[in-house]
């Protein structure tokens, strides 16, 4: 939670309440005022201003009276002393207003005033008898006042009268003044009861020293190893729905006790310990999906607390390691107030296990309770430059001292200009060193002045990431960031922000309406235009008007997710007002289920379930094993059900609310096996983990389940019975990681033999972005399964650090394609990602980067393009086996060091673009390892293209057409490009900015109409291109029926005209029927992407209607082959010419990248041909097999083709 958000939440929570005295004072006077304002019309409800209520309230009041009687007896026996001084109200009662002349009413008012005065006198004199009389005879308001006075005095003699009145009370029980008085008196009696020590109960009184009643929650917190009690552990309880947070700390005996909570309900418990490991909120433990191996106590859990019910929770915590940071200035003097924070190195977002600590007066900050891990320790102080250092904590109890000497740094003056040429006034610019990850940065980022100037303070020279923030409701939003080398050579930092200035911002406002009901929760409204500019706002429950501010002009798509349903509103123009977004609320549905033993069919009475994607379990204790779920989504509800003694079961409750689904649980399956090495010797100490990838339960992957014992034996006792095949990962430090898919027997124990291989070694030198060997660099190895940039996955196969000469070596890598990361691809320069195919029993060399260079200059219309990122990879936006980045300097010059052999593209980052869309191809290059290349001047032209729509006749609608530009690729991997400018009128042409030279597909579409496809080419250096696309008229129709011989869902069909200009996708209904309209005359074919041959061919006359019947046996007719092409050194060779030949027919790959080449064609034998300059060409016979015919090994591992140099 951000600090700003925290402030907002606290302010929202803040609430003060009136006292009863104040209520009485205000209402009494307000009633008089009302009478005067509405003379003759005032009618006072029975019992003055309390209301009559249902009979149940009387029973409650009777209960209070009984309780009061019991207390009274106890009180008499214990002979009380209740001579507490009366608490007076905060203020004296205000004088009663002057009565007016209206007879009867004035008398009552006078009487009220008199009685009030009497009560005050009696209270002061502690005249209990008088007050009790007033209880019996006074006006209703006076009775209430008397009851309050008696409650304050706390004299039990008043209890009988109060009990009687409490019983007679007919108003809201919460407002019953007599019951409240009884409660106060009994509280006072209990407070004054003598505390009789009971030897047998001594521990309880220790646990709860402050109260005579039992607390709602108590327990002890001890050290997991020594069993010693832990002092000063903070126990926080926050209601799951928000509200007051309760905190108690353990005492010297490790005891804690929370006396009471205001409301019954579910509370989240969090522990905070100075020296012991607890978890941050984001680290909430996710239990292993299927294997219940408790690694440690859950330090954060949900507890159901109820008044009067005592819950005992004991916790054991493990001792953590400690970082002892000393923060000094350059003169060696301590710096106090510096924020010291430790984040996990492996966490991309810089999250850590503990909150930041401020350095004290002697510059010390102790961060304790840290799990053994690698940390980036950062220090932020408003008056100094940011500092940070990595530290590895290996064992519990370790205290690692670090000294930080903070530099003052220098101030850098800059000027920020927006894309419309206006200063970025009011925005903020934050500069952080490129290695900075911590979310706890320095406060006081730098505000851009009206003239666009800003000052970056306390900067240490080096590469920095500049982030630009715009103020938004309640905080700020980062809109752009760029890497720059500071200080700039020219002295002044000229920052061109590719966003329009605040002066150009507009808004969208309107109302959300709900049909078929009210929506009782708040929801978020998100708007996004085609170039990714977004805005969002949150509407509280009941709020319907919205304003999306800080938008740029353009066409937006608004998205609202209500009850899990996504509601999208397209073509909304900004600026606009009075937009009405109509949302149909799905009805709440009830899904019912019953959990039984699959064999005996007897109900399982205690179990818990959790919905897919959620973290919290719901416990059920029902004699029939029944439970229900109420949801607004009509989709089937997917649940995991877990019960002791059974395997987890993933159950799906169908969307029929009248059905009770019976879920049978079976005993868990077991896997038993032996892990041995290649020589057949058992391997002890190998870990067994579950598969990669996300489980159906959406929980984290790859949890360690067990370890092999003597004889290499392992047992996994509770494999869930929901699937036949299970993936397991076996690891051992002296062997390569092994991934095995094991087919489980239908019941009982499945035996497995696992062979761990030694694998191969990889070694080499790591170079930085300027071609120098890089010492102390971390190199991560990741396998191909579930490739991701996510830092947690990067070290899946191992991690090494280079020595002082930049050398690294890693052993025991599996003989499969490994991805090698240096640092973070998002932020580092140089070669950040490459790949290698290790060889079993051998060492292969892989240098990451190198001393040879590829240089060039980025120019735009004769001007250098400075501070711009460049990228070398095969195709921007796709995950693949190689990435290298460079940054242009002030002269537009850039250098890449150590690009390996392969054909790749060079891209530059167009200002204002986001994600994959920001990369624009400059040129394709055949890079050669060890050869310097100068690419010369490269024109970074952001061309524009105009697409004009012409309509063949007047019957065609002219509005709501969408136009997109896609890169032309033979494969299906083309991506959308260009930034569409805002159009005010449907008649205006579509203008796309930020295009590079190349060939594009222009796709014109409109709902219900077939799409029109055309081609557009932008020549190198061309700054503008245009095309007119004619929308053909036509009212022809093709309808039909897909008859499938299997039970599978109807496949989506593609309709394409013979010339390829018209196309449309259509998914037949459940009955197989489909219809396509608005078609011009011509020849069409209906096909499916997984079938080679056309399903039907149709000749359509003008205005005609053709009917087709398609009989399809949806068996995949395709054969598949994956190929990995590597050099002699085992390094993947990027995009050689590769194709298949068979009987004069050539098959191009559907996907060709540097880490995989994939073919899809009719099954059979082909000749695979690979050609790359400087390498011997390869021709080899290969087999394309259908999905069914391929073995798991063939699916998982590509065919490796090694290319030898000539």
């Amino acid at each position, binding site marked *: 939670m951000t600090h700003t958000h925290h402030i907002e939440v606290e302010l929202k929570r803040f609430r003060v309440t009136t006292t009863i005295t104040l209520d009485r004072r205000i209402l009494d006077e*307000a*009633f008089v005022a009302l009478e005067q304002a509405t003379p003759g019309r005032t009618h006072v409800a029975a019992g003055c201003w309390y209301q009559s209520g249902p009979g149940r309230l009387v029973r409650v009041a009777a209960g209070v009276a009984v309780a009061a009687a019991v207390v009274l007896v106890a009180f008499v026996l214990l002979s009380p002393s209740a001579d507490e001084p009366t608490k007076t109200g905060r203020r004296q009662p205000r004088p009663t207003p002057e009565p007016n002349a209206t007879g009867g009413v004035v008398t009552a008012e006078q009487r009220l005033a008199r009685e009030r005065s009497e009560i005050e006198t009696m209270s002061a004199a502690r005249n209990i008898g008088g007050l009790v009389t007033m209880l019996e005879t006074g006006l209703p308001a006076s009775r209430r006042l008397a009851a309050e006075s008696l409650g304050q005095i706390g004299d039990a003699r008043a209890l009988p009268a109060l009990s009687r009145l409490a019983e007679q009370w007919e108003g809201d029980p919460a407002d019953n003044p007599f019951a409240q008085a009884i409660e106060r008196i009994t509280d006072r009696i209990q407070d004054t009861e003598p505390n009789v020590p009971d030897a047998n109960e001594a521990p309880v009184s220790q646990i709860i020293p402050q109260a005579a009643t039992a607390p709602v929650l108590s327990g002890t917190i001890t050290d997991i190893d020594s069993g010693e009690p832990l002092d000063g552990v903070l126990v926080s309880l926050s209601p799951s729905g928000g509200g007051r947070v309760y905190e108690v700390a353990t005492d010297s005996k490790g005891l804690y006790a929370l006396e009471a909570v205001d409301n019954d309900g579910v509370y989240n418990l969090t522990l905070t310990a100075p020296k012991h490991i607890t978890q941050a909120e984001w680290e909430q433990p996710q239990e292993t999906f299927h294997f219940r191996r408790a690694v440690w106590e859950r330090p954060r859990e949900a507890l159901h607390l109820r008044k009067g019910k005592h819950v005992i929770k004991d916790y054991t915590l493990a001792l953590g390691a400690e970082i002892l940071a000393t923060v000094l200035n350059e003169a060696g003097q301590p710096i106090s107030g510096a924020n010291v924070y430790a984040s996990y190195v492996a966490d991309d977002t810089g999250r850590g296990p503990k909150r930041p600590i401020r350095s004290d007066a002697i510059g010390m900050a102790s961060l304790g309770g840290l799990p053994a891990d690698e940390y980036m320790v950062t220090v932020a102080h408003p008056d100094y430059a940011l500092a940070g250092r990595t530290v590895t904590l290996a064992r519990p109890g370790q205290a690692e001292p670090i000294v930080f000497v903070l530099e003052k740094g220098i101030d850098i003056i800059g000027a920020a200009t927006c894309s419309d040429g206006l200063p970025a006034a009011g925005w903020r610019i934050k500069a952080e060193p490129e290695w900075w990850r911590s979310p706890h940065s320095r406060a006081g980022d730098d505000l851009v002045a009206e003239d666009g100037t800003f000052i970056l303070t306390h900067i240490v020279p080096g590469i920095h990431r500049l982030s630009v923030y715009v103020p938004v409701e309640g905080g700020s939003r980062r809109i752009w960031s760029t890497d720059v080398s500071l200080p700039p050579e020219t002295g002044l930092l000229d920052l061109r922000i590719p966003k329009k200035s605040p002066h150009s911002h507009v808004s969208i406002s309107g109302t959300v309406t709900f049909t078929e009901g009210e929506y009782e929760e708040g929801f978020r409204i998100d708007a996004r235009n085609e170039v990714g500019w977004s805005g969002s706002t949150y509407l509280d429950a009941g709020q319907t008007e919205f304003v999306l501010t800080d938008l740029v002009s353009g066409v937006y798509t608004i998205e609202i997710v209500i009850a899990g349903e996504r509601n999208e509103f397209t073509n909304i123009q900004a600026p606009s007002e009075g937009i009405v977004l109509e949302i149909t609320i799905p009805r709440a549905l009830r899904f019912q289920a019953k959990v039984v033993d699959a064999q005996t069919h007897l109900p399982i009475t205690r179990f818990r379930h959790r919905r897919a994607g959620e973290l919290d379990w719901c416990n059920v204790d029902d004699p029939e094993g029944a439970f229900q779920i109420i949801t607004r989504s009509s989709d089937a509800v997917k649940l995991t059900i877990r019960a002791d003694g059974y395997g987890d079961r993933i159950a799906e409750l169908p969307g029929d609310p009248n059905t009770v689904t019976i879920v049978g649980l079976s005993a868990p399956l077991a896997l038993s096996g032996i892990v041995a090495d290649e020589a057949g010797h058992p391997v002890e100490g190998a870990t067994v983990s579950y598969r990669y990838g996300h489980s159906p339960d959406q929980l984290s992957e790859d949890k360690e389940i067990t370890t092999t014992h003597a004889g290499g034996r392992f047992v996994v006792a509770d494999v869930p019975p929901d699937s036949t095949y299970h993936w397991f990962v076996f690891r051992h430090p002296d062997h390569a990681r092994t991934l095995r898919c094991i087919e489980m027997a239908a019941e009982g124990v499945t035996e497995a033999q696992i062979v761990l291989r030694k694998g191969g070694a990889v070694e080499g030198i790591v170079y930085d972005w300027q071609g120098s060997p890089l010492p102390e660099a971390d190199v991560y190895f990741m396998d191909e399964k579930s490739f991701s940039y996510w830092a947690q996955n990067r070290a899946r196969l191992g991690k090494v650090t280079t020595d002082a000469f930049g050398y690294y070596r890693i052993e025991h890598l599996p003989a499969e394609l490994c991805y090698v990361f240096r640092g973070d691809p998002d932020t580092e320069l140089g070669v950040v990602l490459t790949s290698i195919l290790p060889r079993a029993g051998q060492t292969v060399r892989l240098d990451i980067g190198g001393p040879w260079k590829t240089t060039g200059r980025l120019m735009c219309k004769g001007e250098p393009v400075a501070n711009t990122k460049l990228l070398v990879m095969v195709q921007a936006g796709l995950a693949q086996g190689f990435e290298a980045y460079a940054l242009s300097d002030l002269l537009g010059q850039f250098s890449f060091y150590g690009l390996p052999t392969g054909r790749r593209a060079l891209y530059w980052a167009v200002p204002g673009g986001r994600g994959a869309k920001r990369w624009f191809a400059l040129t394709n290059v055949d890079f050669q390892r060890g050869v310097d290349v100068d690419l010369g001047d490269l024109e970074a032209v952001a061309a524009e293209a105009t697409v004009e729509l012409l309509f063949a006749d007047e019957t065609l609608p002219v509005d709501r057409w969408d136009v997109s530009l896609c890169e032309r690729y033979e494969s299906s991997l083309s991506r959308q490009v260009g930034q569409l400018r805002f159009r005010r009128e449907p008649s205006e042409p579509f203008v796309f900015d930020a295009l590079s030279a190349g060939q594009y597909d222009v796709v014109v579409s409109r709902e219900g109409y077939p799409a029109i496809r055309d081609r557009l080419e932008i020549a190198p250096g061309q700054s503008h291109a245009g095309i007119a696309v004619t929308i053909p008229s036509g009212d022809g129709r093709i309808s039909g029926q897909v008859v499938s011989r299997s039970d599978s869902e109807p496949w989506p069909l593609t309709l394409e005209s013979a010339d390829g200009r018209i196309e449309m996708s259509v998914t037949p209904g459940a009955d197989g029927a489909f219809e396509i309209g608005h078609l011009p005359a011509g020849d069409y074919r209906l096909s499916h992407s997984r079938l080679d041959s056309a399903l039907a061919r149709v000749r359509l006359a003008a205005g005609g209607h053709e009917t087709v019947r398609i009989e399809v046996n949806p068996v995949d007719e395709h054969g598949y082959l994956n190929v990995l092409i590597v050099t002699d050194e085992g390094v993947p060779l990027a995009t050689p010419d590769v194709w298949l030949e068979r009987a004069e027919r050539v098959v191009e790959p559907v996907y060709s990248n540097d880490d995989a080449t994939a073919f899809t064609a009719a099954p059979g034998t082909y000749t695979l041909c690979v050609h790359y300059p400087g390498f011997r060409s390869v021709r080899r016979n290969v087999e394309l097999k259908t999905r069914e015919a391929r073995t798991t090994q063939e699916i998982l591992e590509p065919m490796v083709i090694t290319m030898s140099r000539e």
Partner: protein
Amino acid sequence: MSERRLIRRLKQGDTEALREIYLAHKDGLLTLAYSLVHDMNTAEDILHDVFVSFAGAAGELKLHTSLRQYLTTCVLNRVRDRFRRRKTRAEREEANVPSEPICTTPEDAAVLAEQTQRLTAALAQLPVEQREVVTLRLNAGLRFKEIARLQETSVPTVQARYRYGIEKLRALLPGGSLE
């Protein structure tokens, strides 16, 4: 019961309707008043004045907004009256001079959590306009548009005041002091 019916009954002199209105809004309005003046006695006085005046004007009541907004406006006007009076007395010239933080009584201290005290003490240091916006937005739950109407200014100005208010609170409540 719908608000309209409640008002109709109130205009007929129904004390029950007045009681319902009071109970529904008292805590919210007291919180608002307290957040703005940072003094419980003054806040209670304001709540008192607002309701007695509201009841006194019930015969002629014409609501163009929600009741909540109407009462919020009344509280705001009372708060402003008090600031104006105090300003006159102290001969202050600056419109944006923040009110001095007022020491809370021991009783208040017992009522308010330490954290909340820090927040409200920081709130008291904001200029009046910013404090109004922050409090009206977060405590009273008013929309920026409604606040703009109350402050007789534009929505962007209100949003800017909110932003600056929150930023100043951030500065006054250094990171972690609330955590």
